[in-house]
């Protein structure tokens, strides 16, 4: 292979390809994160602006007030259980799609809601759950009085499961597609019963896909504010809502930045644990 003419030529090409993108990521991803870190150490001015003194007071306030600790707990709790429901719904579905003769059509049926505008998917559940909505229409048709289904935790759960289900099914489907089914036959040949054979021969092969799907669903489910905002009616505060509130009507950017840093730290901790078990390849597979 002909070497690039000179080291300078090589450097020039490198800067031309990597330079603009790296510059952009530095300016609009790295620097904003650092600004957020600094802002989280500042205080709220009389107009809500960021002013000195610097200190850890926002974090101290965050972790000493049971209200905020409860918000974190609630976000993790709702995020976790939504993810569990999604896995229960999505895991068998991925197998069904992978074994179907109409794979492409079924995949398209999963991809359509995936690409449908996020707000429309949330909005649709308002239509189902609202006072004059579909569900109450059914309830009253059976002669029961209409129920107050909105705002409610149930609605937040259903919409979260609905919104992120395709995010789980797609990576898991990719894992199921790669399964080596001969291992199942081997397990049968060795006398394993169906459940045991599945558990020992097939399930372990889907674990990387499960992990990836879990993270892809859990992270946005914990961080979202729109679902709780629209379906929880301001009664269900998640960490995303707290952040939005601080940057909105509460006008406390310093405290909002601290809450953001906490959320980001939780995400990075989760990813770090994941990367330790799966390696960077695993991270890469996430996308």
């Amino acid at each position, binding site marked *: 292979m002909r070497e690039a003419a000179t080291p300078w030529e090589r450097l020039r090409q490198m800067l031309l390809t990597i330079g603009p993108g790296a510059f952009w990521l530095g300016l609009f991803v790295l620097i904003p994160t650092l*600004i957020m870190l600094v802002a989280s150490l500042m205080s709220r001015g009389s107009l809500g602006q960021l002013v000195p003194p610097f200190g850890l007071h926002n974090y101290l306030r965050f972790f000493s007030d049971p209200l905020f600790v409860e918000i974190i707990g609630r976000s993790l709790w709702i995020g976790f259980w939504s993810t569990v429901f999604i896995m229960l719904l999505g895991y068998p*579905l991925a197998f069904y799609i992978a074994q179907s003769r109409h794979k492409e059509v079924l995949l398209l049926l999963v991809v359509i809601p995936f690409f449908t505008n996020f707000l429309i998917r949330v909005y649709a559940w308002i*239509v189902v759950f609202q006072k004059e909505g*579909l569900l109450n229409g059914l309830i009253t048709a059976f002669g029961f009085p209409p129920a107050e289904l909105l705002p409610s935790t149930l609605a937040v759960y259903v919409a979260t499961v609905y919104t992120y289900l395709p995010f789980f099914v797609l990576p898991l489907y990719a894992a199921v597609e790669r399964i080596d089914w001969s291992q199942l036959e081997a397990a049968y040949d060795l006398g394993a019963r169906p459940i045991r054979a599945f558990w020992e021969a097939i399930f372990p092969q889907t674990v990387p896909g499960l992990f990836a799907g879990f993270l892809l669903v859990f992270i*946005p489910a914990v961080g979202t504010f729109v679902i709780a905002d629209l379906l929880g009616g301001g009664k269900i505060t998640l960490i995303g809502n707290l952040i939005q509130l601080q*940057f909105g009507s509460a006008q406390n950017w310093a405290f909002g930045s601290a809450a953001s840093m906490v959320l980001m730290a939780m995400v990075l901790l989760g990813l770090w644990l994941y990367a330790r078990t799966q390696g960077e390849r695993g991270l890469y597979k996430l996308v």
Partner: protein
Amino acid sequence: MKRLLSIHAWLVFAFLYLPIVVIVALSFNKSRFGVQFTGFTFDWYIRLFSNERILEYLTNTLIVAVVSTVVSTILGTLLAVGLVRYQFRLQTALRYLLYVPVVVPDVVMGISLLLLFDLVRDAIGWPRLSLFTIILAHISFQIAYVTLVVRARLMLLDPTLEEAAKDLGATPWLTFREVTLPLIMPGVVSGALLAFSLSLDDFVVTFFTAGPGSTTLPLYIYSSVKLGVSPEIHALSTLMVGITILVLLLGTLFWRKRA
């Protein structure tokens, strides 16, 4: 067992499509309230199109999506090429930086960009929160997705092809234009499509980086939903779902033809 699996699958599909079907049906419903179907009408669509604002929001949404997709596709493709081809210090750091917009919750991304724009505006009086800042923000998360998609394609590339071009005396630029780029084109197109749909779909980052006069369709839907459900929004949603399905079908047919 097979039977159970298929019952489960069709129940999940019913769950996935129930809300969409409800919205589509109600968008043609005569009655403004409730779910009783009282008759078929196009009124809500007519009313939607007579709302000049909607056209403005649609234009804003498309301007943001097109401009940000073009810029992020170019920057992301170049970045992917550079990352695969060169070894350099800080490469690992850059690779990890790429994952940040993908994994960090969008609310965090949104407020950190808001903080940046605010700081710069305080210092030099520019930029106002506007379509321009939305575009900057969208590019910032799109770049990561484009780079990762194109990089995946590049890693499948046979390096001897590029070497052959070089041995035949092609300049690096000619090699890139005539050999590398056509080979990775499917990746570039997928990356661009993904970037485009991410931009159309984005609400949260837009919410924090938009200013007066830069309302996009998702922002409009959000503010009207806060005021309550309306058949005009049913109609708008139905149109958007319809366009999504159309684009996906065309995309599938396109890829099938190529394959």
